[in-house]
């Protein structure tokens, strides 16, 4: 049981266990029944629920924004930010005109912990675990890199077919339930207009493609929006982001979530790499959770608002 009584007394400036995050989600739903609901889109390999919070003010199958955190389990700042984002949405709805306008017309789906098995493992056994916890037949090495498992040039350059690699793609596209559940959800929804994946820690904002140097059809718009997003982000604490296509700004990577999303017709597909400034890496101190989440939110808001203002 969580020691927190409600989401107002929840400690957003600390890292939390998976059970505490699940409790937080249930509290937020209970406190905001007309705005927040919980959807279980599937189960992880070890049987944990894949919870998605839906923020909706009504309507049927409205255009929607997808946000996910924690695909790489050791990037704790991302799951912690996801908690903060959820509270921010319910706090700002009705007071912040931009978010209010978005939510009056669109839904937001937030998956705070894409990889719950890996996250649990980082708390119990190995703080630096990145992949899932699914055994690989014929290998003593465990787990798949969920951000190489998507059907977007699956198994191509920038992913590994070696199960011991931290970028192991898995045996086939969407072989992992954590990915397949999102794929099924997004496809069945059919009206997702932005797909935002939150990572850490190299201060990047990336758009498709990762698997090819060929520019995305919407590259000019994606690039211009990325500039707006990183400018808004930097306005708070001066945190500088580099932006560009995944291929150009980072490296070639195949099988990534945003490339899959973009190829599904979701134009506004971005990966954010949250801060560190080259001191702590994956071990960002807890006192930086709120500043990091706050600045990240500005970038997310820029993209969400643009998505709302530019229907397609």
């Amino acid at each position, binding site marked *: 049981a969580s020691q927190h009584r409600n989401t107002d007394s929840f400690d957003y400036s*600390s890292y939390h266990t998976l059970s505490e995050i699940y409790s937080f989600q249930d509290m937020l739903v209970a406190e905001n029944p007309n705005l927040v609901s919980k959807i279980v889109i599937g189960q992880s390999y070890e049987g944990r629920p894949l919870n998605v919070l839906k923020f909706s003010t009504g309507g049927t199958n409205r255009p929607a924004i997808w946000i996910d955190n924690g695909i790489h389990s050791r990037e704790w700042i991302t799951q912690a930010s996801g908690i903060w984002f959820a509270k921010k949405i319910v706090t700002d709805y009705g007071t912040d005109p931009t978010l209010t306008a978005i939510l009056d017309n669109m839904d937001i789906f937030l998956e705070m912990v894409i990889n719950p098995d890996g996250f649990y493992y980082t708390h119990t056994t190995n703080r*630096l675990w990145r992949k899932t916890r699914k055994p690989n037949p014929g290998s003593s090495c465990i787990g798949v890199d969920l951000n190489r498992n998507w059907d977007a040039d699956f198994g191509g350059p920038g992913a590994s077919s070696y199960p011991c690699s*931290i970028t192991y793609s898995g045996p086939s596209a969407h072989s992992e339930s954590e990915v397949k559940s999102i794929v099924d959800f997004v496809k069945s929804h059919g009206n997702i207009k932005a797909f935002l994946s939150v990572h850490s820690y190299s201060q990047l904002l990336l758009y498709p493609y990762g698997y090819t140097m060929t520019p995305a059809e919407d590259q000019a718009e994606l690039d211009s929006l990325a500039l707006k997003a990183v400018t808004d982000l930097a306005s708070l604490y001066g945190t500088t982001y580099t932006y560009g296509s995944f291929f150009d700004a980072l490296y070639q990577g195949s099988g990534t979530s945003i490339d899959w999303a973009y190829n599904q017709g979701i134009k506004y597909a971005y990966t954010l790499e949250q801060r560190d400034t*080259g001191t*702590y890496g994956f071990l960002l101190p*807890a006192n930086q959770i709120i500043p990091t989440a706050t600045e990240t939110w500005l970038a997310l808001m820029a993209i969400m608002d643009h998505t709302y203002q530019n229907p397609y």
Partner: protein
Amino acid sequence: KKTFEGHQVLRIIPKDDAQLSLMKNLEDMNEFELDFWRGVTGVSMPVDVRVPIHNLESVKMYLEAQNTEYSVMIKDLQVLLDREQEEMKSAAR
């Protein structure tokens, strides 16, 4: 619970294509048991890599032999992990 006493995270900034190539080779070397926190991207872009204590000397010698400069980003990983655990316990209390 796995611990990381003495593990260091090194920050390496390749200065030219030759050093970039060297970094890529390092990524493929399984014998050093390296964990790349920030992978190899391009010249002048930082590469952060966790090195187990038992391979620290070898890795540093390898880098120095290739005239590749590095700095120690995290001196002892377990110290940071212990601090993180203590903060979590303290917050829970």
